[in-house]
């Protein structure tokens, strides 16, 4: 093994050109996958942060009184993953309505009675973002006595969530497609670099080297190239990210809110591992062609 590493080092040194080209290509491929992952992750996060999970309004019947509130809250909490429950008394609701109507609010004063019901605003946890879950919860809440009606913007929410899931699905499809493309491109590049060295391989075979003896250093090289390429690709991605995010923050200070984030360390490690795998698999695919007897 040590011997193979020695050979790999001398190989890399004597084929600097081929190696640097291969590493550069892997780095660029990783960059493509990385840029897309970054873009996609952040887009998802921004869209979701604009939405903050599901929301619903629970309208209460006239039999409700404020003492029942803790019990009611407890019941609702028991039904699903709620983030927050806010009580809006009918008085508050009327005040809000008056404010909303502004100049046209005079008629409110003419009302004998407050026509509005007491209500609860239920905000669900962020991960609750499937239409069905929200619907389920709404149905369950509606069954609680005292609850008169539940409103959760069924149509709008449904549409939003479907678009979002379409977006996500496409994003995943594209990510895997990009990964496949990265693989093909890497394999092609490695194939070309073998092609440039085919004479050398042929000579080794003629002087009695086994396939294993010939192949092993290539695999190790592929792995190392993959790792080097992955690190380089992530490095460029990080520079690109710094550049872009500083630009965004300067020009659109509003969006400091959605602070754009770099890929997490876990993600980065995965990408480098994928990249190493890429180098290895690229070797595997290319070598098959060159070692036909």
């Amino acid at each position, binding site marked *: 093994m040590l011997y193979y590493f020695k050979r790999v080092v001398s190989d890399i040194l*004597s084929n600097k050109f081929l190696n640097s080209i291969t590493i550069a290509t892997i780095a660029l491929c990783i960059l493509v996958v990385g840029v897309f992952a970054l873009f996609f992750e952040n887009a998802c996060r921004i869209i979701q942060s604009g939405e903050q999970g599901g929301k619903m309004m629970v309208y209460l019947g006239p039999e409700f009184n404020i003492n029942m509130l803790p019990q009611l809250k407890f019941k609702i909490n028991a039904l699903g993953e709620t983030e927050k429950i806010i009580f809006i008394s009918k008085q508050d609701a009327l005040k809000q309505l008056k404010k909303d109507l502004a100049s046209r609010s005079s008629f409110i004063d003419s009302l004998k009675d407050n026509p509005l019901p007491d209500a609860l605003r239920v905000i669900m946890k962020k991960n609750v973002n499937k239409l069905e879950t929200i619907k389920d919860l709404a149905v369950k809440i509606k069954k609680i006595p005292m609850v008169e009606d539940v409103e959760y913007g069924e149509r709008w929410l449904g549409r939003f969530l479907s678009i979002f899931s379409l977006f996500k699905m496409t994003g995943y499809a594209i990510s895997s497609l990009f990964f496949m493309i990265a693989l093909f491109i890497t394999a092609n590049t490695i194939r070309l670099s073998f092609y440039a060295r085919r004479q050398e391989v042929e000579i080794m075979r*003629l*002087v*009695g080297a*086994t396939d294993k*003896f010939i192949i092993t250093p290539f695999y190790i090289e592929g792995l190392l190239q993959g790792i080097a390429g992955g690190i380089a690709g992530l490095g460029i991605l990080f520079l690109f990210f710094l550049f872009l995010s500083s630009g965004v923050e300067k020009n659109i200070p509003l969006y400091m809110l959605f602070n754009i984030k770099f890929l997490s360390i876990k993600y980065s490690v995965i990408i480098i591992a994928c990249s190493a795998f890429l180098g290895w698999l690229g070797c595997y695919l290319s070598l098959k062609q060159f070692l036909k007897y």
Partner: protein
Amino acid sequence: MSIIKDKNSIIRMFNVSKRFGKHYALKNITIDIQAGEFIFITGASGAGKSTLMKLLYLAERTSEGQILVDGMNLARISSSRVPYLRRKFGVIFQDFKLIPRKTVYENVALVLEAANEKPGIIKEKVLKILETTGMGKKINVLPPSLSGGEQQRVAVARALVGDPAIILADEPTCSLDSDSAQTILDFLLEYHSRGTTVLIATHNLQIISNTVNGRCISLVEGALTGAAKLL
């Protein structure tokens, strides 16, 4: 003559032909070479000398006929055994076939490394053989920086370093001045005297006439000429 293994035969070709497209490079060759023989293969340019050697170390496959090398039938050998067959041969290729991006030392050492020789022994053997062929001062040079004759001497060193059972030398001295050529030839004779089978393809008649105990196989357009057939 039968195809059954003879105790002393190291190479037996039986009715071997090699066709490239429609052109026969070798026609109906039947030869029996004893272990330890010193053989010259002669013939005009394009007569099939190199092709005959290529068939032996399986760089090309025969079109017809059978070849036995040290008892192995080359037509039946599995591809994973081919490297081991090739290690029996030390080949001086006509076009040298040095790896341009490896140094002279690495090129020669490669043969021993491929055969899993121990590092210490590799170093010793390689340096010794390069010294003998007169390339001891250029061990760290890359082949493209060598003169034609120097490349040929490296090719000779590589062929001999593994102490092969059979040496196939395809025009081993054509790029060399007569002094260097004689050194190489003496060296081959030394191996021969230790029992190595040596085949030299050449059209340098001077070499042949200087070597008393050699047998001569002549090819004309891929066929053996009368003299050799009788053997």
